[in-house]
């Protein structure tokens, strides 16, 4: 795999079984501007009265419902700006998808 061109760093995280795990990875350019994100899908989630089968968090950590729900095994979304550019089973695969979409990979 070519070396990633973006600089990736941990974004939001959550405590999971006694350790903190990243819910998202943020890809920045050389100037430090965030231009891509890979986001872990969650769900089902109860929010208020509703049950969401699959959700992601947007840049402001608001719950975004995914319709239709993604197929099994597509647990990470690759996002550029507000756009979803691909899905992957694993975060590194999602990173490659995002970089490929940007043409930096």
């Amino acid at each position: 795999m070519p070396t990633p061109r973006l600089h990736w760093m941990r974004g939001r995280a959550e405590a999971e079984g006694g350790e903190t795990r990243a819910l998202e990875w943020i890809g920045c350019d050389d100037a430090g501007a965030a231009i891509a994100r890979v986001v872990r899908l969650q769900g089902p989630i109860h929010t208020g009265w509703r049950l969401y089968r699959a959700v992601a968090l947007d840049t402001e950590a608001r719950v975004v419902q995914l319709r239709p729900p993604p197929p099994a095994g597509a647990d990470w979304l690759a996002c550029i700006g507000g756009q979803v550019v691909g899905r992957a089973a694993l975060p590194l695969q999602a990173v490659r998808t995002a970089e490929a979409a940007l043409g930096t990979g």
Partner: protein
Amino acid sequence: MSETPLDKIRNIGITAHIDAGKTTTTERILYYTGVSHRIGEVHDGNTTTDYMEQERERGITITSAAVTCEWKGHRINIIDTPGHIDFNIEVNRSLRVLDGAVFIIEGVAGVQPQSETNWRLADRYNVPRLIFINKLDRTGADFYRAFDTLKEKLDIVALPLQLPIGVEDQFSGVVDLVEMKAIIWEGGELGAKYHDAPIPDDLLEKAREYRQLLLDTALSVDDAAMEEYFEAGDVATATLKRCIKAATISGAFRPVLCGTAFKNKGVQPLLDAVLDYLPSPIDVPGIKIAAEEGEDEHAERRRIKADPKAPFAGLAFKIINDKYGTLTFVRVYAGTLRSGDMVQNTTRGHRERIGRMFQMHADKRAEIKEVSAGDIAAFVGLKDTMTGDTLAAAEDPVVLERMAFPVPVIDISVEPRTKESVEKMTIGLQKLAGEDPSLRLRTDQESGQTILSGMGELHLEIIIDRLKREYGVEANIGAPQVAYRETISRAVTETYTHKKQTGGSGQYAEVKIVFEPLERNGGVVFENKVVGGSVPREYIPAVEKGIRVQADTGVLAGFPTVDFKYTLIDGKYHDVDSSALAFEIAAKACFREGMKKAGPIILEPIMDVEVTTPQDHVGDVVGDLNRRRGMIQNQESSGSTIIVRAHVPLKEMFGYISDLRSMTKGRASFTMQFHHYDPVPRNIADEIMTKSA
């Protein structure tokens, strides 16, 4: 024995389907680690772990054997387990006490039925495991096809850590995807000599592809490793190994290695992987204490962590009797114990003195003076400790989670040939049943015969053979019988009054009991709902006992009655004439009367049968299974052979092997294991009842 630091101990099992190469692999491990100076072979009957006469004669493993070896500064305690389903209890109890397991998968057939069964058992006990695809030298071997069966049949995320170099007789080594190098065996010296080499050009692209998959999957379990990867574009070998180990322990994925133990290739890297990826006793969460009555079995409870300084806690998981007495194998979870110490058997509520202690090496033993957390040892001198019992220090008398034992499905009657042998046979059978929780003994109330219940024809054959060789008892054996069960199909409320009040001290008891069917495997459940003292409290246990005893002899054909609940709701007593005995008699009679009205049915064991046959005999095999009341579940092809899976009543499977051989000119084989109990059809039930009458 406890000089090795805990983090350098590995307690592992080697398990697989029959003939996949468990004992062969164990034999190589003992040779390469310097424990033995020659390699024994199963077909020559001279392996270390198959030490029983019957094992050597038949070329199969019957009992699990514990051996210890040293590899690169670590101590590895290994238990080699049997592959035949009849001896599944050995796998069950071994997996219960081990910290990790190596599953050996045959490179030609892929995942086979017994591997599936053992895999589910390992799931039950959350055992971290490695997979070794073996026999890659064999004609028809295909690593990638065998690998695909892991996903298909076990539904797991499997991840190769190695790829084979060459196949069948050209198999020469493996590509190590962790260090991106080739490992080549040089031939000669029984595989002890091997060297690193660059990855062959024709495999480089494939190796890169699989290495990327390994990185993608393994690093996803560790954010710090991901950051290292983003920083450098790769990770250090130590980081990758740390991630693989974490994922192996959590079960996030299952690492896969490969080789051919028989041709002495691939075993040393497997040993390295045991050290690198399987947990030491301190890497696992610790063993749970048992649930209190009424507590959810699956709820999180206190765990006993491996600590030599903590109060002692251990689990007796195996008992064997030999000429020196009874040896009790114990997995020590916490504390340190010395010869002569006293411990509490917290399962049975009595104290035991520890006599001599041994480290076992198959049938050989080395005396040790103390044993600590993380170790497995054999104790002599325990008088009343059975398989599954907890031994603990008096200051912290914990009870550890018990083991689950399989249900026997085949009965045989056994009678000594001479009157002098009666006592010897009783003692022998009791000792054998004490060793083997999957063997049950009972006396048929009507015929007075001793009935042995076991897991299969082979299991009982070996028991009878051991009775003869080890206890000198010649016995007449009845034909194997299906272990039928009885149950009820509807609820009924029955009242029975037991009254004998003619002269002398009388007997009086009345019970009103509701009998209700339960789901399969529901067992026999008692509930007391008596209010107002209509049955005094001291007589309630007699009612419970009366039904349980009577349930051993069902009303239809005398088979044990299972899967029902009985609730005592009312009754009457007499101040002078009532007694525990009177209530027990009333309960027994109430059962007999109530069961007849509750729609009694006979249940028979249904087996999961897998027949592997050449394509041109599939029609004959399927037709024959249908004639045997089989329900075909599916058919799939594996190379030039077809695998037919069916559920077939055990009754129809006696002697199947000879019919199958003649039908297919000896080219097909089959395996079977217990699946579930089902009601027998009416005509068969009539036949069974007529026979029992």
